[in-house]
């Protein structure tokens, strides 16, 4: 069988219909991962020892369990042990499972980002009599965010690709649609190359956006003399 360009090109209008769903899953799962990961990072860094150990256990478990197994636990397993989870939709289960899984990776990334902020920055805040909350929010967090951004971006890239696993729960997203098309036409190569290209392009666009944000955030740390004209706006935005 030869490669059919006509069929290949004709696949895209059908497949791109599912991009919003894949993006929706990835973005909501990422939000869950950032919120859960962020809160648990604070617990791991600043809470009492027993709570820190619980977070370590959480990280160890969710990093150690394969994503597919985790999704099956959430979708098929949890409804068996608790009525709360009965009737959970496949989409919700996929988003929750992916979000929790990635939060475990983010805890490590956020922790490294925060602990890499120079101790002198914190001491300066202390001697100027700032509260710990103020030091954390205004000094540590902006600097840690820049440190953590590249690795956090990689997590989102992984997450976007892992949304394709949602097909195993019955969610029809890009990959699931591709699988249906391939089964119908028996042109597996064209279909899966087209599916792969769509993920690739989404990730190229995301990588470009992340680079833009990184450049924006790293402005204070570059050895370029600042433009003095917009001083009012600069001051009010940072402090």
């Amino acid at each position, binding site marked *: 069988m030869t490669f059919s360009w006509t069929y290949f090109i004709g696949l895209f209008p059908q497949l791109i219909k599912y991009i919003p769903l894949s993006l929706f899953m990835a973005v909501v799962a990422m939000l869950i991962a950032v919120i859960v990961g962020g809160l648990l990072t604070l617990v791991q860094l600043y809470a009492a020892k027993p709570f820190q150990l619980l977070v370590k256990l959480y990280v160890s478990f969710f990093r150690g369990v394969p994503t597919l197994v985790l999704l099956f636990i959430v979708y098929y397993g949890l409804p068996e042990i608790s009525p709360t989870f009965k009737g959970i939709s496949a989409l919700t289960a996929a988003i929750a499972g992916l979000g929790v899984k990635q939060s475990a990776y983010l805890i490590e990334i956020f922790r490294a980002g925060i602990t890499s902020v*120079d101790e*002198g*920055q914190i*001491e*300066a*805040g*202390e*001697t*100027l*009599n*700032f*509260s710990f909350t*103020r030091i954390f929010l*205004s*000094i540590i967090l*902006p*600097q840690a965010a820049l440190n953590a951004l590249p690795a956090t971006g990689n997590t989102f890239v992984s997450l976007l690709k892992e949304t394709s696993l949602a097909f195993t729960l019955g969610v029809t997203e890009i990959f699931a649609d591709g699988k249906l098309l391939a089964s119908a036409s028996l042109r597996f190569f064209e279909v899966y190359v087209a599916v792969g290209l769509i993920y690739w392009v989404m990730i190229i666009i995301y990588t470009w956006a992340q680079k833009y944000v990184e450049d924006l955030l790293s*402005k*204070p*740390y*570059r*050895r*370029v*003399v*600042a*433009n*003095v004209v917009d*001083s009012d706006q*600069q*001051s*009010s935005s*940072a*402090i």
Partner: protein
Amino acid sequence: MSLIQISNLAVQFSQHKVLKNIDLTFEEGSVTAIVGPSGSGKTTLLRTLNLLQSPSEGTVTVAGITVDAKHISKADVHKIRSQSTMVFQQFNLFKNLTALENVMSPLIYNKLAGFDEAKAIALKVLSDFGLESIADQYPVTLSGGQSQRVSIARAIVAKPKVVLFDEPTSALDPEMVSDVLTTIAQLAQQHITMVIVTHEIEFARQIANNAIFVENGEVIAQGPANKILSTKGTGRIADFVNSLENRVISTPQQTNTSEVVTPRFRLLQSGAN
């Protein structure tokens, strides 16, 4: 009237006592230089005054607020820090804020002024230090001397009673030392109580009323700066002072020659007084 008093102070790291049996008083408006060899406990002593380092024994009193090593409350630490600030060897300017925002930060974050008022005050202080042209630059773009002067501006903007300096010129290139020392000398004339850990003996002699010599975690001598830091005489302190006055630096390019570092602070003679 004494503004700072420390009694029977000791600081211990695991089994090692870094400071022991320290009793000192610092008069209001005085300038005190702390000198001594590396590792003698000078910086630890200074950090204890601001409670960046918790004492193991004894008491620290700053502007009437006493903290006992046996019970250090967060509230008392905040009260002491509202009266005293510190200037660090490595500047420690907030990297994510411009020079102006750094200087505004104590006023805004401690709710001492609104945004506009804080900005006006900070600009005035930067202007007094001749730094208005770099107000909107981030720390990474500043020279060492500029960074240290901005950090001094940040330390004094909220008008603390005490400013502590931890080797403020040690991390600077030689040509930048003079600007920073000049700035500190300006403050000395404004009745701000200052405690300075320094190796700039000539500067300390000219600016400080008192000097303290620390060695092996103990105060070996204290008294008028011109007496303690005198190069005349014999003994451990005179030897140390003379060794700083006549530092010999060998560089890789100068393996066969050496450069005698002469005192580089000439502020008081040059009219800034």
